[in-house]
């Protein structure tokens, strides 16, 4: 699997990453190398093998439905880049 510039641009857009023009080629090469490395997997027949998502095949625990968190807005918004009237601010989204 070989990735070209346009693949890198497409992936970078999906991941919302700004990539400098001059770095695209290197990323394309690095990513191609990594994909070549992982392609070793394709030689293995894994038919009928159950994918393993959790090491111990544990199951989800349930939380009882109780409100345990109160209003922590001021505390939690101390780390926010831009807040106005309790709302997080982002550049205008046009719908």
């Amino acid at each position, binding site marked *: 699997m070989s990735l070209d510039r346009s693949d890198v641009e497409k992936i970078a857009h999906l991941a919302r990453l700004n990539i400098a023009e001059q770095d695209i080629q290197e990323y394309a090469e690095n990513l191609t190398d990594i994909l070549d490395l992982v392609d070793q997997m394709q030689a293995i027949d894994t038919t009928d093998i159950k994918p393993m998502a959790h090491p111990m095949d544990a199951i989800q625990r349930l939380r009882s*439905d109780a409100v345990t*968190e109160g*209003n922590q807005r001021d505390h939690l918004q101390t780390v926010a880049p831009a807040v106005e009237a309790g*709302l997080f601010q982002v550049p205008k989204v*046009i719908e």
Partner: protein
Amino acid sequence: MEWEAVIGLEIHAQLATKSKIFSGASTAFGAEPNTQACAVDLALPGTLPVFNAEALRMAVMFGVAIEADIGHTSVFDRKNYFYPDLPKGYQTSQLFHPIVGIGHIDIELEGGSTKRIGVTLAHLEEDAGKSLHEEFPSMTGIDLNRAGTPLLEIVSEPDMRSAEEAVAYVKKIHAIVTNLGICDGNMAEGSFRCDCNVSVRPKGEEKLGNRTESKNINSFRFIEKAIKGEIIRQIDLIEDGHTITQETRLYDANKDETRSMRSKEEANDYRYFPCPDLLPIVIDDDYVEQIRNCLPELPDARKARFIEQFKLGDYDAMVLSAYRELGGFFETTANTAGDAKLAANWVMGELSKHLNQHDTDITVSPVTAEMLGGLLLRIKDNTITGKIAKQVFEAMWAGEGNADEVIEAKGLKQVTDTGAIESLVDEVISDNQPQVDQYVNAEPDKRGKMIGFFMGKVMQASQGKANPGQVQGLLKQKLDALAN
């Protein structure tokens, strides 16, 4: 050419849990922005989700109610996309192993027939926050109070063929989730929202046309209008030689039309994969059986029971069974009054009128079911007439006490004293000689209708309090005596 519409619906029902699906923050509606968004909801680095047991129970209740397959193992997946009201950059949802599998409901069509609509699946997911575009001139404000509210997304088969069928389906699902108590059903607050997938094809054609999806419609009427409008738009386009673009559209209730939402449509690749922070949910048969055994009565069952037990007509039974609270109110009223038909008329008539006029929920009605039943008892035992009863109802609504207290305080008790009624009757007969003459000269089979005039006069004279049966009897007796 004759066209056929094909409609499938995706309904998002907010589950009525106290806390969020993956955090301990409150789900209450209407709080100040971001006061119900905790560290987990804000997706602070390092925070992790833990699944709310009640959300699971509610989803399974719905599955049992629509006779669906309940997945033995259900898994949460991440749906990855960037949007400011989606704090983690992914929505925790279910793609590969939804909690509720194939089920169905029956809808009633005009003319009394029913149609079975397939439910493809229902899966659990978390709601996003809200983007507020109007608050600031150049910025959008983000409120994450809603982020993490549990949603049950209910996906139908494309089994509906008209806007009316679609609305009947939505109403039925609405009735089921509200009856189960798993969703408050408040469409104005967004607790129950609907996406409509619509396509058209020539009648008889098997192949489906390109479909459009109209998003987040929040009233039954808008659903009907949006679908009707979309069907016409598509047929017009095709007949003019255009093709339908598969796209997402937004219904604008003010203009009563849908418009394209291309901005959100750019080649989405959601990169679904199982959420590694959550583990598979395993649902055993005992758990499902336990829920099945304590499932509240559902609208269809209640309707059948109302017809059987209270001898209601089909329409009355359907209306009164749709909502748990309404059904319960009716039953209490009917049992107190000992007259189901009378109770049905009053609940669907006077009570509903007042609730609507005052925008009041039945659960907080100032006239309780016991009070209404008490009022109806007084009609039945002839203490008051139906007309006076409306006056009593008004007074009860205004908080002036129960029926007996109002009747007593206002002196509305019906006059049944034969002597008193007889003197009123005699008075009316002697005061209206021309009408008496007409009566006397009329053919005997026409006289029945003419008696109404005298009835009105007597009732008027008694201020509505005279017992109408007694008045009618006496009038007939005296007038007929004059005629013969």
